[in-house]
């Protein structure tokens, strides 16, 4: 942990400096594990290849399934592999396991005493982690995918900038969801069951198994409105240019909306949980 970085709060500038330091700490913490990063890149590349082959066969049978041509479908696969560790919604490996453990052991009571906001603290740390994972585990699989398969990567810098914004929002939505999962530990003590269910929902409803545009009828429409689509479907569609003109802003607003709603829900739940901690400790 890097609690010792906590500076005195108060002024807005001080607060910004504090959370920036926390984010830097998150980045550096994950940058330490070089072998693990290399192993992760290898695994993401292998999975990317396997899924790409099956998608190739699927799009060979049904060209333009879900409105994607084959190159776009393959790009969708590799965006997913590049974002898997960054968004960290499907697999473990984010802050929430640590927070779960602190709730279970009671160390969270100490965290609540600190002169920093609990949610913002973890958000800053998680954004730092995601920043490293995007560079360390996102870029290389994407490059490998582009070398091995024909991808439909855009030339427009605007689309890439929008993609990065969309990824940042994806991480925020993912954080907000995992924060809720971790907080459930206040009531369940062992929130790993909830974490498993959350990971499953994320795997299915984010588009990682199959693009959500391939899901049939009303079910598909509903699934595309859920928060999980922010994690893979929306960033991939942004990069593939599926949102023309102002639609691009609409897509980002959709993600930002879910981020705001879920972060607010996290604050409410945290307030309720905090009262419970006081009861338990008293």
């Amino acid at each position, binding site marked *: 942990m890097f609690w010792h970085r906590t500076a005195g709060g108060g002024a807005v500038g001080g607060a910004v400096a504090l959370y920036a330091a926390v984010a830097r700490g998150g980045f550096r913490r994950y940058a330490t594990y070089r072998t693990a990063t290399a*192993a992760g890149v290898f695994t993401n590349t292998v999975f990317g290849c396997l899924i790409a082959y099956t998608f190739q066969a699927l799009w060979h049978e049904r060209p333009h399934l879900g409105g994607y041509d084959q190159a776009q479908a393959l790009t969708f696969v590799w965006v997913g592999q590049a974002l898997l560790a960054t968004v960290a919604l499907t697999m473990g490996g984010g802050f929430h396991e640590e927070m779960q453990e602190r709730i279970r052991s009671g160390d969270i009571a100490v965290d609540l005493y600190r002169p920093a906001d609990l949610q913002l603290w973890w958000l800053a740390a998680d954004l730092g982690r995601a920043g490293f994972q995007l560079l360390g585990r996102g870029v290389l699989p994407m490059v490998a995918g582009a070398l091995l398969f024909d991808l439909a990567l855009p030339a427009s810098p605007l689309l890439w900038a929008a993609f990065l914004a969309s990824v940042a929002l994806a991480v925020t939505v993912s954080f907000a969801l995992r924060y809720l999962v971790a907080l459930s530990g206040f009531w369940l003590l062992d929130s*790993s069951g909830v974490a498993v269910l959350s*990971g499953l929902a994320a795997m299915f409803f984010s588009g990682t*198994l199959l693009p959500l545009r*391939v899901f049939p009828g009303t079910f598909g429409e509903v699934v595309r409105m859920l928060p999980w689509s922010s994690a893979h479907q929306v960033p991939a569609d942004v990069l593939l240019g599926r949102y023309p003109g102002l639609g691009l802003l609409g897509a980002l607003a959709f993600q930002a909306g879910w981020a705001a709603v879920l972060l607010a829900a996290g604050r409410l739940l945290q307030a309720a949980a905090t009262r419970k901690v006081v009861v338990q400790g008293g």
Partner: protein
Amino acid sequence: MAESFGRAASVRHGVRAYLLIVAMWVRSTLTYRASFVIMAVGNAAGSGLEFVAILLMFSHIDALGGFGLPEVALLYGASATALGLADLLLGNVERLGSRVRDGTLDVLLVRPAPVYVQVAADRFALRRIGRPLQALAVLGWALTRVQVDWTPGRVVLVVAMLLSGAAIFGAIFTLGAAFQFVAQDAAQVQNSFTYGGNAMLQYPPTVFSRELVRGATFVIPLAFVNWLPALRLLGRDDPLGLPGWVDFLGPVVAAVMCGGAALAWRAGLRGYRSTGS
């Protein structure tokens, strides 16, 4: 020490130790019943969702790589059952790297039970029974749907496929763990071959490139988990055009893999130097 016992006695000792540790963890797991049920259902749903994705694909197509839904379901069920069994019985060996890192492996070295048994049985997760059960259900459905002229020999082929498949995946888990003696943080790499292998074997070999199928046959013999026996069962040619008897080599390949994994494990353990030394 184990060496002074006879070979059979030491195997019996190892199995007994494994069962004792497993029974202890099962008892402790069942203390939190609600959590256990959620986790087991989640485990089944995790692999079930992969099958739902296959079903969604087949809502748009009739055949993938020339294979219909029951045939793909057969491949899926066989591979996921084999992986599920291996993962249930000794999947925990993949945590070896973190044991080496935090030094808890040293504790196991001084206990009067084989280290491998302790590492495999420690924190035995009964919830992982969800995956093989779900996969067996899909396999059962597939076996009633595929066009096969059932003979006793073909029934034996199916059973041998599942058991040797589980042994092959188990050997890969063990090889991965032995590799972690060298590279402690590289636990993820073996996922490429276990879960990644499973993700590949769910689909017909015709979907993948020839080089990949070759690699999965001759380098890491995953093809023996389900592809070759299942193709034989379905009366289909394998894409590499291997001689027919190769389809029956699953148990032999599994035995060779397990032998190799045992040697690698021993070499890894012998070369182990504690963080304290």
